[in-house]
């Protein structure tokens, strides 16, 4: 199924060429002039300009990414927003819709916001997993990372941000349409200009070597020379044997394989062992979001008080009726009927009078000042109970790689 071969670097080059041609590049038609110097994922800017990449925050889980293009309009159920008006506004501004109806917030992209707004081409890695993987493998400014497959590029943006202009992200994707979309996206987001190289390749068959690495992405030894490897593909064990050629030889290399099934982990662990990786450890990450809510404080003494109130009103009602009979006052027929058909407490509260400490029968808004509340957290309705298993390991060169001259002067310092 996944035997598509593109190990031949020549083939890759052909693919790259095809990507340029309009015939094989359907995205061209929807091409908009994005801001060429876009650095959205590497530094913040304050004022929105034409061609900028903006995330329109519309509402709950609803962020739309737009490239600010005069003449275009963002239409939402909360109103219409002309791009033109965005120019000159600040990132973070609240913008009202046409004719003052509705509003959105204009946000500056970040990898974390992108992860919750990107178009899904595949399953993606979410922030709790990606942030842990980066922290645990010590990914920082300057790290050289291999990532396969690119998929929807969720993790790619996060890696690219963190490794910065001193680091490199080598991303591989073997599915051609997905590769093309990712490449276009990375171009528009400025990743390719700064630190990202995406390659159309089946890494399980063709490995990770890259023929001609652009000068600025090249290391001392003119190779990929990766410090960290992240594999998010169905059969990492078939890709692992190819890593030897592309990982750093003079420092420890960390790897994380991301697989949803335990059977995959088994095979991965074996492949790692057979290929000289050590300190193998598998973990799961459980990320949760908690909602801040308020619960009404219902005091038992109020319950008792209310019952007493009902009772007294009831007997009062009976008194009133007796009184009415004696005095012969004219009464509403409904009232009489009501009382006759069994006088349950319910009726009293429906009158809306009386002691009603918890707002029974009323539409009470959570947090309404008229009532007493206590703060509570509620777990989000749908939690991601399993994303994937994360298998970590390290490759050590196990050799001395530098000689430090014996120092006689520093001895006394200890």
């Amino acid at each position, binding site marked *: 199924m996944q035997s598509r071969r593109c190990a031949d670097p020549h083939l890759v080059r052909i693919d790259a060429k095809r990507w340029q041609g309009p015939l094989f590049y359907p995205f061209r038609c929807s091409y908009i002039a994005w801001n060429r110097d876009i650095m959205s994922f590497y530094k913040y800017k304050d004022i929105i300009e034409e061609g900028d990449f903006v995330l329109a*925050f519309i509402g709950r*889980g609803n962020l739309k990414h737009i490239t600010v293009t005069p003449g275009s309009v963002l239409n939402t159920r909360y*109103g219409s927003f002309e791009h033109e008006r965005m120019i000159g506004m*600040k990132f*973070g*501004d*609240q913008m009202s819709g046409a004719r*003052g*109806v*509705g*509003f959105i917030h*204009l946000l*500056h992209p*970040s990898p*974390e916001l992108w992860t*919750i707004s990107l178009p899904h081409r595949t399953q993606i890695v979410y922030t*709790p997993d*990606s*942030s*842990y993987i*980066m*922290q*645990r493998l010590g990914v*920082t*400014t*300057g790290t050289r990372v291999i990532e396969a497959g690119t998929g929807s590029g969720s993790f790619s943006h996060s890696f690219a941000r*963190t490794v*910065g202009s*001193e680091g490199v992200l080598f991303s591989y994707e073997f599915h051609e349409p997905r590769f093309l979309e990712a490449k276009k996206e990375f171009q528009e987001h400025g990743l390719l200009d700064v630190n990202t190289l995406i390659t159309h390749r089946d890494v399980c068959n063709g490995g990770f070597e890259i023929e001609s690495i652009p000068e600025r992405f090249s290391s001392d030894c003119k190779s990929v020379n990766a410090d960290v490897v992240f594999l998010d593909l169905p059969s990492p064990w078939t890709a692992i*044997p190819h890593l030897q050629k592309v990982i750093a*030889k003079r420092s*420890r290399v960390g790897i994380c394989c991301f697989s949803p099934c335990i059977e995959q*982990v088994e095979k991965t*662990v*074996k492949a790692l*062992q057979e290929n000289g990786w050590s*300190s193998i*450890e*598998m973990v*799961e*990450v459980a990320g*949760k*979001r*908690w909602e*801040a809510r308020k619960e009404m404080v219902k005091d038992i003494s109020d319950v008792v008080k209310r019952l007493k109130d009902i009772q007294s009103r009831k007997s009062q009602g009976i008194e009133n009726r007796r009184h009415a009979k004696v005095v012969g006052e004219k009464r509403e027929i409904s009232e009489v009927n009501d009382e006759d058909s069994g006088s349950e407490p319910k009726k009293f509260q429906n009158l809306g009078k009386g002691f009603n400490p918890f707002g029974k029968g009323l539409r009470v808004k959570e947090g309404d000042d008229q009532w007493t509340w206590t*703060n*509570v*957290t509620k777990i989000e309705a749908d939690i991601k109970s399993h994303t994937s*298993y994360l298998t970590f390991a*390290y490759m050590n060169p*196990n*050799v*001395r790689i*530098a*000689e*430090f001259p*014996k*120092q006689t002067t*520093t*001895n006394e310092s200890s």
Partner: protein
Amino acid sequence: MSETPDPSPNVTPAFKAENEVFAPKSSTIISPNQFAFVRLPSEGMKIVELKPGGIINLGKFGAFAVDGVLGYPFGQTFEILDDNQVTPIESITYEADISEDVELSEGGAEAAGPELTKDELTKLFTNSSENNQNIINIGSSIQKLSSEEIDSLKKSGASSDFGQKIIEQIIAGHAGFDKKTIFSQQKYLKRKQQKFLRRFTMEYLGSSQLLKYYIEKDSQRVLDMSEETLGLLLNYANVRQGGRYLLVDETGGVVLYAMMERMKGQGTIVVAHDNEHPNHIALRYSNYQPSMVEDMVKPINWLQFMEPENERIDWVTATEDELNDMKFAKRQQYERRSKRAQEVNSVIDQVTTGNFDAVIVVSTLNLPSLVPHLIGTVGGSRPIVLYHQYKESLLDTQHSLSNDKRVLAPSIFETRVRPHQTIPGRMHPVMSMRGFGGYILWATRVFPKEGGVTAVGRGVSKKKKDEEAKVEEKDVVMEEAKDDKA
């Protein structure tokens, strides 16, 4: 191992070795005059300083000469030999890599197979990547070993493999070891190794290692923050090279250390603190040059932060003549005060200018009263990230922010890593782990439209809808989009 690294490495002279002390510290090669992180077989850990010519004592695991480990890459495991010498080895403990064919023989301990010779047994412990399938066949030729015998072995055992010998004998002496299941054998071996192997791994002291060290020592000092929560915090805060951040850090500087690691010398971190001087005790282990720390880290106390105009120092620069007239001591005092005035005023400027790329708060201060003072200093669309040990504190904070229109979509996050036992065929989550880690509130700084906005209403009861829309807008959370199961 299928491809062993070249045994005769091209040893190169170390970079800039002449002025070692001032050379940038390495994060990949074990280099002199820097701190490093030592992992012990017992899963214990230690921070050590690598002074050339020095000896580092690891207690019951032995002692070693620093010179012996210099020049290897960080991450290297060593075995301690005689005379404080070390030899590089592949792994700190025997790793349970039982192969499938053994796994298939359900009989476990009773499975038939060739007997292990003593040599093989020793090898088993020396080289982790040996195939250990035969471990289940460990001898029926049982010799009981008393604890006195172990002690005497330990005393006499100055030799390199004495730890292994002990384990070997313990196995031999463990009546019925061969009756144990593979799994319990492995567990047993691991426990024994943790006690007796004279091995250690020398790791780079990164922020994760530093955090682990403090968690182990006293997790309250880092406010119970876990590695995964630190990672989440750094990513939600979008920490990267060149950024300008406002930080409140009551972990003794561990969070600061982590930010500096990500920023690699470029950018600014304004640190607000509640004493005369900030407590950055963790930075003493850092391999950063003091000048770099000074360039990046700008402390400001809360008084200066809250009342910048009162606290700004009116500094009158002395004239050339005045300076010349000053006595040496007076002149020095002048220089000191001048520098301090400049520092204070410049950090006050940083705060009054604001527009920080993020505000990060890891503190025990009451957040609902603190945070409103910080929001204004954050740039548009930049993250506000609050850490707290207790979810309830973030809950109260989120409620208190719900009417603050400068804050968009605050949400509380929790992340927990669950480790598994990683033996093929026997994978399952570990039975117990520490319950800690803390919580993160993540929100985005926005600018509400002056004069307010009207939410959209649709349908018949427009007014009601308006109300609902407003509520909905206010309560919005950055919910992660559903996976479209590809």
